[in-house]
Protein backbone atom coordinates (compact mmCIF):
# COMPACT_ATOMS: atom_id res chain seq x y z
CA UNK A 1 0.00 0.00 0.00
CA UNK A 2 1.34 3.37 -1.01
CA UNK A 3 0.79 6.18 1.44
CA UNK A 4 0.87 9.54 -0.26
CA UNK A 5 1.41 12.91 1.35
CA UNK A 6 -2.24 13.59 0.65
CA UNK A 7 -3.34 10.50 2.60
CA UNK A 8 -1.13 11.53 5.48
CA UNK A 9 -2.57 15.06 5.50
CA UNK A 10 -6.09 13.65 5.51
CA UNK A 11 -5.24 11.23 8.31
CA UNK A 12 -3.65 14.03 10.32
CA UNK A 13 -6.73 16.22 9.86
CA UNK A 14 -9.07 13.41 10.84
CA UNK A 15 -7.07 12.65 13.97
CA UNK A 16 -6.95 16.33 14.93
CA UNK A 17 -10.74 16.68 14.52
CA UNK A 18 -11.36 13.40 16.33
CA UNK A 19 -9.22 14.36 19.35
CA UNK A 20 -10.99 17.71 19.60
CA UNK A 21 -14.46 16.14 19.46
CA UNK A 22 -13.51 13.26 21.76
CA UNK A 23 -12.38 15.66 24.51
CA UNK A 24 -15.74 17.49 24.72
CA UNK A 25 -17.46 16.76 28.03
CA UNK A 26 -21.06 15.92 28.89
CA UNK A 27 -22.67 18.96 30.57
CA UNK A 28 -24.66 16.71 32.93
CA UNK A 29 -21.75 14.40 33.76
CA UNK A 30 -18.83 16.75 33.26
CA UNK A 31 -16.24 14.21 34.38
CA UNK A 32 -16.99 12.22 31.21
CA UNK A 33 -15.88 13.02 27.69
CA UNK A 34 -17.89 12.03 24.63
CA UNK A 35 -15.29 9.32 24.05
CA UNK A 36 -15.79 7.99 27.61
CA UNK A 37 -19.56 7.93 27.06
CA UNK A 38 -19.22 6.12 23.76
CA UNK A 39 -21.49 8.54 21.93
CA UNK A 40 -18.86 9.70 19.44
CA UNK A 41 -19.52 7.42 16.46
CA UNK A 42 -17.05 8.57 13.81
CA UNK A 43 -15.25 11.57 12.43
CA UNK A 44 -14.28 12.48 8.89
CA UNK A 45 -12.14 15.48 8.10
CA UNK A 46 -9.94 16.85 5.36
CA UNK A 47 -7.02 19.25 5.06
CA UNK A 48 -9.40 21.69 3.31
CA UNK A 49 -10.94 22.61 6.68
CA UNK A 50 -14.05 20.44 6.52
CA UNK A 51 -15.00 18.10 9.34
CA UNK A 52 -18.06 15.93 9.95
CA UNK A 53 -18.72 14.40 13.34
CA UNK A 54 -21.39 11.76 14.03
CA UNK A 55 -22.75 11.48 17.56
CA UNK A 56 -25.58 9.41 18.95
CA UNK A 57 -28.15 10.48 21.55
CA UNK A 58 -28.23 8.66 24.88
CA UNK A 59 -31.95 9.10 25.64
CA UNK A 60 -34.53 10.38 23.13
CA UNK A 61 -35.22 13.42 25.28
CA UNK A 62 -31.69 14.04 26.54
CA UNK A 63 -31.44 17.84 26.78
CA UNK A 64 -27.66 17.61 26.91
CA UNK A 65 -27.42 16.46 23.30
CA UNK A 66 -28.02 19.91 21.81
CA UNK A 67 -25.41 21.41 24.07
CA UNK A 68 -22.93 18.68 23.22
CA UNK A 69 -23.45 19.39 19.54
CA UNK A 70 -22.69 23.05 20.13
CA UNK A 71 -19.60 22.15 22.15
CA UNK A 72 -18.36 19.72 19.48
CA UNK A 73 -18.88 22.35 16.81
CA UNK A 74 -16.89 24.88 18.81
CA UNK A 75 -14.10 22.44 19.76
CA UNK A 76 -13.57 21.23 16.20
CA UNK A 77 -13.55 24.81 14.88
CA UNK A 78 -10.96 25.68 17.50
CA UNK A 79 -8.86 22.80 16.17
CA UNK A 80 -8.61 24.58 12.83
CA UNK A 81 -11.68 23.52 10.83
CA UNK A 82 -13.98 26.16 9.45
CA UNK A 83 -16.67 23.98 7.92
CA UNK A 84 -17.96 21.70 10.66
CA UNK A 85 -21.06 19.55 10.58
CA UNK A 86 -22.33 17.62 13.59
CA UNK A 87 -24.70 14.84 12.58
CA UNK A 88 -26.98 12.63 14.61
CA UNK A 89 -26.73 8.88 14.19
CA UNK A 90 -29.77 7.08 15.62
CA UNK A 91 -29.02 3.48 14.80
CA UNK A 92 -27.99 1.30 16.51
CA UNK A 93 -29.27 2.92 19.71
CA UNK A 94 -26.76 3.90 22.38
CA UNK A 95 -26.30 1.51 25.26
CA UNK A 96 -24.48 2.02 28.54
CA UNK A 97 -22.28 -0.91 27.48
CA UNK A 98 -20.47 1.64 25.28
CA UNK A 99 -19.23 3.60 28.32
CA UNK A 100 -15.51 2.87 28.39
CA UNK A 101 -13.61 1.41 31.36
CA UNK A 102 -12.02 4.81 31.78
CA UNK A 103 -15.51 6.37 31.87
CA UNK A 104 -16.66 3.87 34.52
CA UNK A 105 -13.60 4.59 36.62
CA UNK A 106 -14.27 8.34 36.46
CA UNK A 107 -17.94 7.89 37.41
CA UNK A 108 -17.03 5.83 40.48
CA UNK A 109 -14.32 8.33 41.39
CA UNK A 110 -16.97 11.08 41.43
CA UNK A 111 -19.39 9.16 43.62
CA UNK A 112 -21.64 7.84 40.86
CA UNK A 113 -22.12 4.11 40.58
CA UNK A 114 -21.31 2.96 37.02
CA UNK A 115 -23.81 0.81 35.09
CA UNK A 116 -23.67 -2.97 35.02
CA UNK A 117 -24.17 -4.91 31.80
CA UNK A 118 -27.26 -3.81 29.87
CA UNK A 119 -30.11 -6.34 29.70
CA UNK A 120 -29.91 -8.35 26.48
CA UNK A 121 -32.29 -7.32 23.72
CA UNK A 122 -34.15 -10.45 22.73
CA UNK A 123 -36.52 -10.51 19.78
CA UNK A 124 -40.24 -10.34 20.56
CA UNK A 125 -42.13 -8.69 23.41
CA UNK A 126 -40.18 -7.21 26.32
CA UNK A 127 -40.84 -9.69 29.15
CA UNK A 128 -42.85 -8.44 32.11
CA UNK A 129 -40.97 -8.66 35.38
CA UNK A 130 -42.99 -8.18 38.53
CA UNK A 131 -40.03 -8.33 40.90
CA UNK A 132 -36.99 -6.08 40.85
CA UNK A 133 -34.45 -7.77 38.61
CA UNK A 134 -32.11 -4.92 37.91
CA UNK A 135 -28.68 -5.29 39.41
CA UNK A 136 -28.13 -3.97 42.93
CA UNK A 137 -25.32 -1.44 42.62
CA UNK A 138 -22.46 -1.24 45.08
CA UNK A 139 -22.07 1.93 47.08
CA UNK A 140 -19.45 3.99 45.19
CA UNK A 141 -18.45 5.69 48.45
CA UNK A 142 -17.81 2.79 50.83
CA UNK A 143 -18.02 -0.23 48.51
CA UNK A 144 -20.81 -1.96 50.42
CA UNK A 145 -23.32 -4.05 48.49
CA UNK A 146 -26.04 -3.37 51.09
CA UNK A 147 -27.81 -0.70 49.08
CA UNK A 148 -31.43 0.06 48.32
CA UNK A 149 -33.19 1.84 45.47
CA UNK A 150 -34.90 5.11 46.40
CA UNK A 151 -36.16 5.97 42.95
CA UNK A 152 -35.93 4.40 39.53
CA UNK A 153 -35.44 7.89 38.10
CA UNK A 154 -32.80 10.29 39.37
CA UNK A 155 -31.86 13.88 38.59
CA UNK A 156 -31.44 12.96 34.92
CA UNK A 157 -33.05 10.26 32.77
CA UNK A 158 -29.86 8.22 32.73
CA UNK A 159 -29.56 7.83 36.52
CA UNK A 160 -31.49 6.22 39.36
CA UNK A 161 -31.29 7.16 43.03
CA UNK A 162 -30.03 4.80 45.76
CA UNK A 163 -28.99 4.75 49.40
CA UNK A 164 -26.26 2.77 51.07
CA UNK A 165 -27.47 0.95 54.16
CA UNK A 166 -23.90 0.65 55.48
CA UNK A 167 -22.63 4.22 55.29
CA UNK A 168 -26.15 5.70 54.90
CA UNK A 169 -25.06 7.97 52.07
CA UNK A 170 -27.37 8.47 49.09
CA UNK A 171 -25.80 8.03 45.66
CA UNK A 172 -26.69 7.97 41.99
CA UNK A 173 -26.34 5.02 39.65
CA UNK A 174 -26.16 5.15 35.85
CA UNK A 175 -28.99 2.87 34.73
CA UNK A 176 -28.26 -0.04 32.47
CA UNK A 177 -29.94 0.59 29.15
Amino acid sequence: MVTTARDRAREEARERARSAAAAVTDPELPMLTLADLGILRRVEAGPDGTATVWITPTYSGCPALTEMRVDVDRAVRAAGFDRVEVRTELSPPWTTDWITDEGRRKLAEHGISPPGTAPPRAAGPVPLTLLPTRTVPRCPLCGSDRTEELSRFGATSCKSLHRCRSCLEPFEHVKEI
Partner: protein
Amino acid sequence: MSGDHIYSVLGEEHGGDTRWAFGTGFTDALSGVDTTLPGGVDGQDLALYCQMLGDDALVQAQRLVHWVTDAPELEEEVALANIALDLLGQARLLLARAGQADGTGRDEDDFAYRRGSAEFRNVRLAEAPRGDFARAVVTLLVLSSARLAVFTRLADSRDPVLAAIAAKAVNELAYHREYALSWTLRLGDGTPYSHERTVAAVADLWPFTGELFATHPVEARMAAQGVGADPADVREEVHAVLTQVLTTATLDAPAPFPEAAVAGREGRHTPELDPLLDELQKVAREHPEATW
Protein backbone atom coordinates in the same frame (compact mmCIF):
# COMPACT_ATOMS: atom_id res chain seq x y z
CA MET B 1 -11.56 19.47 35.82
CA SER B 2 -11.01 19.66 39.54
CA GLY B 3 -12.67 18.63 42.76
CA ASP B 4 -13.63 15.27 44.16
CA HIS B 5 -17.34 15.51 43.91
CA ILE B 6 -19.76 15.89 41.05
CA TYR B 7 -21.25 19.10 42.42
CA SER B 8 -17.96 20.92 42.49
CA VAL B 9 -17.35 19.84 38.90
CA LEU B 10 -20.83 20.94 37.82
CA GLY B 11 -20.11 24.35 39.25
CA GLU B 12 -17.14 24.90 36.94
CA GLU B 13 -17.65 27.43 34.20
CA HIS B 14 -17.43 26.00 30.72
CA GLY B 15 -17.12 29.51 29.34
CA GLY B 16 -18.56 31.10 26.23
CA ASP B 17 -22.01 32.24 25.20
CA THR B 18 -22.90 28.88 23.67
CA ARG B 19 -22.97 27.27 27.11
CA TRP B 20 -26.74 26.89 26.96
CA ALA B 21 -28.70 24.78 24.56
CA PHE B 22 -31.35 27.26 23.57
CA GLY B 23 -30.89 29.83 20.88
CA THR B 24 -27.91 27.98 19.43
CA GLY B 25 -29.44 27.39 16.03
CA PHE B 26 -29.42 23.62 16.45
CA THR B 27 -33.12 22.93 16.24
CA ASP B 28 -33.44 19.91 13.99
CA ALA B 29 -33.86 16.78 16.09
CA LEU B 30 -33.00 14.61 13.08
CA SER B 31 -30.03 16.63 11.85
CA GLY B 32 -27.85 14.67 9.48
CA VAL B 33 -29.99 11.52 9.55
CA ASP B 34 -30.63 10.00 6.11
CA THR B 35 -34.33 10.71 5.66
CA THR B 36 -34.91 9.12 2.24
CA LEU B 37 -38.30 7.38 2.15
CA PRO B 38 -38.19 3.60 1.68
CA GLY B 39 -39.40 2.44 -1.76
CA GLY B 40 -43.16 2.39 -2.37
CA VAL B 41 -44.05 4.21 0.85
CA ASP B 42 -46.52 7.07 0.62
CA GLY B 43 -45.03 10.13 2.32
CA GLN B 44 -48.43 11.52 3.37
CA ASP B 45 -49.35 8.26 5.09
CA LEU B 46 -46.00 7.99 6.84
CA ALA B 47 -46.29 11.60 8.01
CA LEU B 48 -49.75 11.02 9.47
CA TYR B 49 -48.58 7.82 11.11
CA CYS B 50 -45.62 9.62 12.72
CA GLN B 51 -48.01 12.32 13.95
CA MET B 52 -50.21 9.70 15.61
CA LEU B 53 -47.26 8.18 17.47
CA GLY B 54 -45.70 11.57 18.15
CA ASP B 55 -48.93 13.17 19.40
CA ASP B 56 -49.59 10.29 21.81
CA ALA B 57 -46.21 11.06 23.39
CA LEU B 58 -46.45 14.86 23.25
CA VAL B 59 -49.91 15.03 24.85
CA GLN B 60 -49.09 12.43 27.49
CA ALA B 61 -45.87 14.32 28.34
CA GLN B 62 -47.80 17.55 28.77
CA ARG B 63 -50.26 15.77 31.10
CA LEU B 64 -47.43 14.28 33.17
CA VAL B 65 -45.81 17.67 33.62
CA HIS B 66 -48.80 18.63 35.78
CA TRP B 67 -47.24 16.51 38.54
CA VAL B 68 -44.18 18.72 38.75
CA THR B 69 -44.26 20.47 42.15
CA ASP B 70 -47.42 18.51 42.95
CA ALA B 71 -46.41 14.84 43.33
CA PRO B 72 -46.78 12.92 46.61
CA GLU B 73 -42.98 12.59 47.00
CA LEU B 74 -40.04 14.37 45.40
CA GLU B 75 -38.86 11.02 43.98
CA GLU B 76 -42.17 10.54 42.16
CA GLU B 77 -42.10 14.06 40.80
CA VAL B 78 -38.64 13.44 39.40
CA ALA B 79 -39.68 10.08 37.98
CA LEU B 80 -42.79 11.45 36.25
CA ALA B 81 -40.84 14.42 34.89
CA ASN B 82 -38.19 12.07 33.50
CA ILE B 83 -40.83 9.90 31.86
CA ALA B 84 -42.37 13.03 30.34
CA LEU B 85 -38.94 14.06 29.06
CA ASP B 86 -38.39 10.68 27.38
CA LEU B 87 -41.80 10.95 25.72
CA LEU B 88 -41.13 14.51 24.64
CA GLY B 89 -37.88 13.34 23.05
CA GLN B 90 -39.73 10.60 21.17
CA ALA B 91 -42.35 13.13 20.05
CA ARG B 92 -39.71 15.55 18.74
CA LEU B 93 -38.07 12.89 16.59
CA LEU B 94 -41.40 11.55 15.29
CA LEU B 95 -42.82 14.99 14.47
CA ALA B 96 -39.58 15.99 12.75
CA ARG B 97 -39.89 12.81 10.69
CA ALA B 98 -43.52 13.71 9.84
CA GLY B 99 -42.48 17.10 8.45
CA GLN B 100 -39.88 15.51 6.19
CA ALA B 101 -42.07 12.64 5.03
CA ASP B 102 -44.96 14.81 3.83
CA GLY B 103 -42.64 17.17 1.99
CA THR B 104 -43.92 20.28 3.78
CA GLY B 105 -40.69 20.79 5.67
CA ARG B 106 -42.62 21.62 8.82
CA ASP B 107 -40.46 21.26 11.93
CA GLU B 108 -41.34 19.88 15.35
CA ASP B 109 -42.44 23.33 16.58
CA ASP B 110 -44.89 23.71 13.68
CA PHE B 111 -46.54 20.49 14.75
CA ALA B 112 -46.47 21.10 18.49
CA TYR B 113 -47.38 24.78 18.58
CA ARG B 114 -49.18 25.59 15.34
CA ARG B 115 -51.94 23.01 15.06
CA GLY B 116 -55.44 23.09 16.48
CA SER B 117 -56.89 20.24 18.51
CA ALA B 118 -58.72 18.73 15.49
CA GLU B 119 -55.32 18.21 13.85
CA PHE B 120 -53.93 16.27 16.82
CA ARG B 121 -53.92 12.52 16.24
CA ASN B 122 -53.36 11.17 19.76
CA VAL B 123 -55.61 8.60 21.40
CA ARG B 124 -57.95 10.19 23.93
CA LEU B 125 -56.51 8.33 26.92
CA ALA B 126 -53.36 10.46 26.54
CA GLU B 127 -55.36 13.66 27.11
CA ALA B 128 -57.55 12.30 29.94
CA PRO B 129 -57.50 14.54 33.06
CA ARG B 130 -54.65 13.68 35.37
CA GLY B 131 -56.83 12.87 38.42
CA ASP B 132 -55.21 11.40 41.52
CA PHE B 133 -51.92 9.53 41.73
CA ALA B 134 -53.59 6.11 41.31
CA ARG B 135 -55.15 7.33 38.11
CA ALA B 136 -51.81 8.66 36.85
CA VAL B 137 -50.21 5.29 37.61
CA VAL B 138 -52.92 3.24 35.87
CA THR B 139 -52.94 5.58 32.85
CA LEU B 140 -49.18 5.23 32.57
CA LEU B 141 -49.41 1.46 32.95
CA VAL B 142 -51.92 1.16 30.11
CA LEU B 143 -50.26 3.66 27.76
CA SER B 144 -46.70 2.41 28.33
CA SER B 145 -47.73 -1.26 27.91
CA ALA B 146 -49.50 -0.54 24.62
CA ARG B 147 -46.75 1.75 23.31
CA LEU B 148 -44.04 -0.73 24.27
CA ALA B 149 -45.84 -3.51 22.36
CA VAL B 150 -46.26 -1.33 19.25
CA PHE B 151 -42.72 0.07 19.33
CA THR B 152 -41.18 -3.39 19.80
CA ARG B 153 -42.69 -4.19 16.39
CA LEU B 154 -41.68 -0.85 14.90
CA ALA B 155 -38.04 -1.56 15.66
CA ASP B 156 -38.24 -3.80 12.55
CA SER B 157 -39.95 -1.11 10.44
CA ARG B 158 -38.97 -0.82 6.80
CA ASP B 159 -38.52 2.90 7.41
CA PRO B 160 -35.02 3.08 8.88
CA VAL B 161 -35.73 6.34 10.71
CA LEU B 162 -38.86 4.99 12.40
CA ALA B 163 -37.01 1.76 13.21
CA ALA B 164 -34.16 3.68 14.84
CA ILE B 165 -36.51 5.92 16.86
CA ALA B 166 -38.45 2.85 18.02
CA ALA B 167 -35.39 0.79 18.93
CA LYS B 168 -34.27 3.58 21.22
CA ALA B 169 -37.74 4.22 22.64
CA VAL B 170 -38.26 0.55 23.56
CA ASN B 171 -35.57 0.76 26.24
CA GLU B 172 -37.16 3.88 27.69
CA LEU B 173 -40.70 2.52 27.57
CA ALA B 174 -39.61 -0.65 29.38
CA TYR B 175 -38.54 1.58 32.28
CA HIS B 176 -41.83 3.50 32.16
CA ARG B 177 -43.84 0.29 32.34
CA GLU B 178 -41.66 -0.99 35.17
CA TYR B 179 -42.26 2.21 37.13
CA ALA B 180 -46.02 2.08 36.57
CA LEU B 181 -46.30 -1.58 37.49
CA SER B 182 -44.25 -1.19 40.66
CA TRP B 183 -46.67 1.52 41.83
CA THR B 184 -49.73 -0.46 40.72
CA LEU B 185 -48.54 -3.30 42.95
CA ARG B 186 -47.91 -0.98 45.90
CA LEU B 187 -51.22 0.84 45.60
CA GLY B 188 -53.37 -2.18 44.75
CA ASP B 189 -51.83 -4.35 47.43
CA GLY B 190 -51.39 -1.45 49.87
CA THR B 191 -53.97 -0.03 52.26
CA PRO B 192 -57.74 -0.50 51.78
CA TYR B 193 -57.86 3.18 50.77
CA SER B 194 -55.11 2.94 48.13
CA HIS B 195 -56.73 -0.27 46.86
CA GLU B 196 -60.10 1.46 46.53
CA ARG B 197 -58.61 4.43 44.66
CA THR B 198 -56.79 2.09 42.25
CA VAL B 199 -59.99 0.12 41.59
CA ALA B 200 -61.74 3.43 40.85
CA ALA B 201 -58.93 4.50 38.50
CA VAL B 202 -59.16 1.27 36.49
CA ALA B 203 -62.96 1.61 36.27
CA ASP B 204 -62.76 5.27 35.18
CA LEU B 205 -60.13 4.72 32.54
CA TRP B 206 -61.23 1.39 31.10
CA PRO B 207 -63.77 2.88 28.63
CA PHE B 208 -60.87 4.72 26.95
CA THR B 209 -58.71 1.62 26.45
CA GLY B 210 -60.62 0.19 23.48
CA GLU B 211 -59.52 3.04 21.24
CA LEU B 212 -55.86 2.09 21.69
CA PHE B 213 -56.46 -1.04 19.63
CA ALA B 214 -58.79 0.40 16.98
CA THR B 215 -57.03 0.56 13.62
CA HIS B 216 -57.05 3.78 11.60
CA PRO B 217 -56.82 3.26 7.80
CA VAL B 218 -53.35 4.87 7.83
CA GLU B 219 -52.19 2.42 10.48
CA ALA B 220 -53.60 -0.46 8.42
CA ARG B 221 -51.79 0.70 5.27
CA MET B 222 -48.52 1.32 7.12
CA ALA B 223 -48.71 -2.11 8.73
CA ALA B 224 -49.45 -3.78 5.38
CA GLN B 225 -46.34 -2.13 3.92
CA GLY B 226 -44.10 -3.30 6.73
CA VAL B 227 -43.60 0.26 7.97
CA GLY B 228 -46.07 0.43 10.87
CA ALA B 229 -47.71 -1.89 13.37
CA ASP B 230 -51.44 -2.63 13.45
CA PRO B 231 -52.57 -1.81 17.02
CA ALA B 232 -55.19 -4.58 16.80
CA ASP B 233 -52.30 -7.08 16.65
CA VAL B 234 -51.07 -6.13 20.13
CA ARG B 235 -54.49 -6.21 21.77
CA GLU B 236 -54.16 -9.66 23.34
CA GLU B 237 -50.53 -9.20 24.31
CA VAL B 238 -51.31 -5.96 26.16
CA HIS B 239 -54.37 -7.44 27.82
CA ALA B 240 -52.28 -10.33 29.12
CA VAL B 241 -49.72 -7.90 30.56
CA LEU B 242 -52.38 -5.82 32.31
CA THR B 243 -54.14 -8.91 33.64
CA GLN B 244 -50.91 -10.18 35.16
CA VAL B 245 -50.11 -6.82 36.78
CA LEU B 246 -53.61 -6.12 38.10
CA THR B 247 -54.19 -9.59 39.54
CA THR B 248 -50.77 -9.57 41.20
CA ALA B 249 -51.80 -6.21 42.69
CA THR B 250 -54.83 -8.03 44.22
CA LEU B 251 -57.20 -6.23 41.86
CA ASP B 252 -59.85 -7.97 39.77
CA ALA B 253 -58.76 -9.30 36.40
CA PRO B 254 -59.66 -6.55 33.92
CA ALA B 255 -62.68 -6.78 31.63
CA PRO B 256 -61.90 -7.27 27.95
CA PHE B 257 -60.94 -4.03 26.22
CA PRO B 258 -64.19 -2.46 24.99
CA GLU B 259 -64.82 -2.45 21.26
CA ALA B 260 -64.26 1.12 20.13
CA ALA B 261 -64.10 3.14 16.93
CA VAL B 262 -61.16 5.28 15.94
CA ALA B 263 -61.63 8.77 17.45
CA GLY B 264 -58.51 10.69 18.50
CA ARG B 265 -56.57 9.33 15.50
CA GLU B 266 -59.13 11.18 13.32
CA GLY B 267 -58.88 14.37 15.34
CA ARG B 268 -62.04 13.78 17.38
CA HIS B 269 -61.12 14.53 20.98
CA THR B 270 -62.61 15.05 24.42
CA PRO B 271 -63.08 18.65 25.65
CA GLU B 272 -59.96 18.10 27.78
CA LEU B 273 -57.55 18.54 24.86
CA ASP B 274 -58.24 22.22 24.13
CA PRO B 275 -57.25 23.55 27.57
CA LEU B 276 -54.17 21.30 27.48
CA LEU B 277 -53.14 22.81 24.14
CA ASP B 278 -53.96 26.34 25.36
CA GLU B 279 -51.30 25.81 27.99
CA LEU B 280 -48.80 24.04 25.72
CA GLN B 281 -49.12 26.65 22.95
CA LYS B 282 -49.56 29.80 25.03
CA VAL B 283 -46.10 31.28 24.53
CA ALA B 284 -45.95 30.32 20.85
CA ARG B 285 -49.35 31.94 20.20
CA GLU B 286 -48.52 35.15 22.02
CA HIS B 287 -45.06 35.45 20.49
CA PRO B 288 -45.34 33.88 17.03
CA GLU B 289 -41.85 34.95 16.02
CA ALA B 290 -40.14 33.68 19.14
CA THR B 291 -37.36 31.12 18.79
CA TRP B 292 -35.88 28.88 21.45
